[in-house]
């Protein structure tokens, strides 16, 4: 508990945390703006064409920004200590390294999970309110029906933060850790799409960026045999966190600092 309290104090006493959360809040505002734009667009169309209107959902801007913010926050929680040499102070104050590593992980996940949940919930709820009674398909479902989707996104963000944290513990470099997560989030998906079918869909289904949709998919949703079940997608998501934490912990505990 002492180690947790100390890590919590560390995380909230640096500006980078505040900036990351501010970026998240900014993305929520973008979500509002997007919802407003969708509403204006709907109003501007002749009533006959409205039925065919397609628009990205309200949380779309956040779905792009959230993983980046999460990865940065997770990576910085540990790489900033390696960069400044403070890791030696940390290890000298809490010499039990597994405890120190776990305390950091809990604090990272404990900040990103509620922040992620609050931001997506705000984006979707306010987005619905802005669009109001307009029958835009992606805004039609009531918020209550979206709860699994929102929870899924929050857990997904927390997992990405832990992947960034684990990568940071292994690579001990902010640039290295963030590059690793960017490869996972932005480079691998288009690469997977280049594979010949059905391997493109199979490889794509286990990619970090494609998991949220599979987690929240309605049981009868049109998909393919290659797609994961919601339970399967949750399992793969947790596997990402487990692998990143195991690799990070191994490096953190075993290597000299």
């Amino acid at each position, binding site marked *: 508990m*002492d*180690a947790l*309290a*100390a*890590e919590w*104090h*560390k995380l909230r*006493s*640096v*500006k*980078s945390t505040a900036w990351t959360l501010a970026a998240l809040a900014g993305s929520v505002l973008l979500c509002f703006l997007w919802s407003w734009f969708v509403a204006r667009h709907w109003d501007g169309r002749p009533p006959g064409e409205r039925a065919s209107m397609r628009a990205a959902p309200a949380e779309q801007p956040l779905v792009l920004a959230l993983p980046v913010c999460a990865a940065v926050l997770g990576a910085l929680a540990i790489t*900033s*200590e390696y960069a*400044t*040499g*403070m890791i*030696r*102070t940390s*290890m*000298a*104050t*809490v*010499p*039990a390294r597994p405890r120190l590593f776990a305390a950091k992980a809990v604090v990272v996940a404990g900040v990103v999970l509620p922040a992620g949940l609050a931001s997506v919930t705000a984006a979707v709820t306010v987005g619905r309110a802005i669009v109001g009674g307009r029958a835009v398909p992606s805004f039609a479902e009531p918020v209550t029906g979206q709860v699994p989707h929102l929870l899924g996104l929050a857990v997904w963000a927390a997992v990405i933060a832990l992947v960034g944290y684990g990568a940071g513990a292994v690579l001990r470099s902010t640039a290295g850790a963030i590059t690793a997560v960017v490869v996972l989030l932005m480079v691998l998906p288009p690469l997977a799409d280049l594979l010949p079918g059905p391997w493109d869909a199979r490889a794509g289904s286990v990619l970090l960026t494609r998991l949220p949709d599979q987690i929240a998919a309605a049981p009868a949703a049109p998909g393919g045999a290659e797609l994961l079940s919601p339970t399967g997608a949750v399992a793969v998501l947790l596997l990402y966190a487990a692998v990143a934490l195991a690799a990070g912990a191994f490096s953190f505990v075993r290597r*000299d*600092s």
Partner: protein
Amino acid sequence: MIEVRELTKRYGGSPAVDGLSFQVRPGTVTGFLGPNGAGKSTTMRVLLGLAAPTSGEALVNGRRYQEIRRPMHEVGALLDAGAAHGGRSAFDHLRWMARSNRIPVSRVTAVLEQVGLAGVARKRVGGFSLGMRQRLGIAAALLGDPGVLMFDEPVNGLDPDGVRWIRELMRALAGEGRTVLVSSHLMSEMALTADRLVVIGRGRLIADTSVQELSDRFRRGVLVRSPRAPELSAALAAAGAAVEREGAGDLSVRGLDPAGIGELAAANGIPLYEVTPRSASLEEAYMELTAGSAQYQAEPGLAGRGRAEGAGS
């Protein structure tokens, strides 16, 4: 109490510390001396559980550091002064450390006061000078009021006032019965601060001695100057002293102290112009001890040439 037993630490193939054993006892300031790269910092890192020993052990109060649950109450350490996040305030830096070891927040204020940083407690560490960072590191070491203190090169970057402050602080801490280990590559600094010296070179122990013993060991006899040197020389030799002639009228005498020499000269009616006990400075003693173990040595010839060129331009 610090105990290092047969400690070896290898990085790759080459040993940074090689079979090193020594003890640091309470109530004294022990200087940990050696040229750059001698293994001082590595030894301290192993003592603090930051690096794992290849073999042997390093114990604090009879235990491995990693086994101490809230170590700040037992051991305080100043590592490199940069070991703080620049974006955090001095207060917040000490606050999280206090939290991790259940130290009351009142101690944070007290140590900031003690090291003279109370006025900048809410300022970001990134804006601190090297000397202020050293003071912050010392505040962190003192935070848990520990009985064992380790300072790695504490005077780096301090102004003369700061150097004197550290010196007095270390003496005071030892005076309270604490164990104080201070690493340095400057003998001149340690001569003023330390009671005992542990000198290492290339990872091995060179000397484990008191400052007094070391200066005694390098005593060079007494310089005596007299217009009747040959006569005095014979009288001194007859009294059992070893005498060497050093140029016209100068004698180097061993085996008699200045008082004995003076009385002998008076008894024989021989005038003395000078009687000076000579000892190698601790600096010289240290240079002699560590000769050949300095890892990074300038070629004397090259240094000389550089100076000559500098003088010419």
